[in-house]
């Protein structure tokens, strides 16, 4: 579903991404670990079509992103590190707006269900977003991603602003999405969270994917040790 073939990106002399190969099947959660600047965000941007690769291909559901960015976007959803929404619209309206932009129309109760599912309390749904905390916005972001019913989901540090409880809820949600056959690529610093949800873990360094492991191979502490050794 999510496929990278020799994906490379360089900015002048600087190699942001070097011959990255990646294949994430439906139902699989792939966690990218790595330091700041290791190329995680660049990888995601290549899939989202925000960055055009210097060479190699990024494919979503068999569609080359660089060739047909609009078509590839139909199959993917994205949750940024910090979800920013239109402050003058309520959470519900933001969800409705973004869903409609993606071509989905939901009834009000369906939208509410999605938000409840993402963990947003019922009473804050119709308040303007400018009163929301970061975590609440994150939950609307999750709802937006789910509402798109995409086959590929990209997450960029999605849990960085969430409290442990919300973070845990989020993991449960992700696993459920994977069970429904969604391929998920998640960039994160959080090794324990990665160990918890991922089917596979990849470690990046200086634009290269240096190691890939099945998450079940190790315990979280072992994984941390490997990570520290690798980077």
């Amino acid at each position, binding site marked *: 579903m999510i496929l990278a073939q020799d994906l490379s990106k360089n900015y002048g002399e600087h190699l942001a991404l070097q011959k990255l190969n990646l294949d994430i099947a439906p139902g699989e959660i792939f966690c990218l670990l790595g330091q700041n600047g290791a190329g995680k965000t660049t990888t995601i941007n290549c899939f989202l079509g*925000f960055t055009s690769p210097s060479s190699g291909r990024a494919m979503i559901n068999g569609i080359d992103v660089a060739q047909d960015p609009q078509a590839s*976007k*139909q199959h*993917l959803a994205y949750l*940024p590190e910090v979800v920013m929404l239109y402050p*003058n619209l309520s959470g519900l*309206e933001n969800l409705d*707006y973004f869903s*409609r932009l993606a071509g989905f129309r939901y009834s009000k109760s369906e939208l509410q269900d999605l938000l409840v599912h993402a963990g947003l309390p019922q009473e804050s749904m119709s308040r303007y977003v400018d009163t929301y905390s970061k975590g609440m916005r994150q939950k609307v972001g999750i709802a937006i991603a789910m509402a798109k019913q995409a086959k590929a989901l990209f997450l960029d540090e999605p849990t960085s602003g969430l409290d442990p409880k919300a973070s845990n809820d989020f993991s449960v949600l992700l696993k459920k999405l994977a069970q429904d056959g969604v391929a998920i690529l998640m960039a994160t610093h959080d090794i324990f969270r990665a160990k918890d949800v991922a089917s596979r873990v990849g470690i990046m360094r200086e634009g290269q994917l240096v190691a890939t492991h099945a998450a079940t191979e190790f315990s979280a502490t072992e994984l941390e040790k490997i990570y520290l050794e690798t980077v």
Partner: protein
Amino acid sequence: MVRTIFRYEFKQLLRNKVLWGMAIFLVLCSAYAIGYGRRDYQQFSNQISEVQQKQAETYQKLLPRYDSLSKLGEKAPQALKGEYGDPSMADWFYRRYATWTPSTLSALAIGQRDQQTPFQRIRMFRNVLVPELEEINNPEQLLTGNFDLGFVLVYLLPLLLIVLGFNALSHDREQGMLALVQVQGVRPAQLMRTRLFLHFLILWGMAALLITVAFAWVNADWQQWPLWMIATGLWLLFWSGILAWVNQWRQSSAFNATVLAGSWILILILLPAAVNFLNDKVHPIEPPAEFMAAARDIEYQEWERPVAQVVADFRRLRPDLSSIAIRDTQAAQIYFYNEVIMSKINLQGTNLQTTRFKRMALEKKTALFNPAYAYHTLLTQSAGSEISNYEDWFSQVKQVSTQNRDYLRSLGFNKKLVTRKELDELPVYKASLTSTNVLGNLLLMLFLCLLTWGLAAFQTRKALAL
């Protein structure tokens, strides 16, 4: 998708305090502008009707005398015959005025109306090249300018468009919504265009409302309404094009605001000022001292010349009248002198008009780079308050003056007594203002719209590579 963006953008705008602040600002400014224009026009038309009333009063006062002249004919007492029966005296007693009356629409676009003397006396001894009287004004007020609806539309409307749309794209990028929007399958350019279109519609709608209310309030000619609407639409479209173009440079909101404020200054202050500057350099206007001195000398010296010379000059100048029988040589002298003096002054003054025409030609030429001028003159011309309208009127005044001279001469040559009948036949000015052709300006504005949108489209294509 466009409908969705539209709906939600509109929803957000309605919740935006800036929009409401702007709307209130615009409405207040317009209300003041229309109120001002209305009062100004009232004062103006009061002055005109006073002039017309005075003419009617004079006529009524003269009637008994001319009625008795009609009754008595040549048997009238010498005092009456000599003073009122004489054509040149009748011309003097019966003060007739040509009045310049731009339509009520000029309450909304005052143009050059406030600087012109809106009436001219029709009489034989009169140098028709320059206005007889100068209107009284406060020059500091003229320097500052009028606050009419035209000003609001020309200056403030684009400014509000800029305020609404300077961050049409940068806002989402800076706030972080853009990535999410793009992932939903919306192209940034599409988002921006829809937004700008919405802003355009909102402001055009507001302008439509204001123009309609203004037309009703000042009781303007509704035939001009579509023209005002189209011109205003093009003006806003032109600015939308600039906004689209600048927004696609993908710079920060602050940068956009600076650049757009700069373009506003450029288009509304610097460009017009530069054209004025150029015109002053190439075709400076200074009092035509030589003409004034020459005209005065002609008037004074001509009376000193022997009659025979003047008659000879007259026959040369007016070959069409050379065969006319002159029954009263003495009385006719006055008309010879008059005709000769006027022709000579006319000859001196040919340069006088040309500077004005040259200036206008230059203005027209530079209009291509001067959209504010194109739009503004469109409004003033449709209101009939532009200098060209005044020129038209002034040439009509000249025509009536010539008719008047010819008529008086025909009476004087034939030693005819002025009676009631002749009094009624003395030429008076009848208003027949023609509308100006504004198609050229409309096309110009259309072209400028295409230009800015062309630039924007070009920028989109360049940005698409990103």
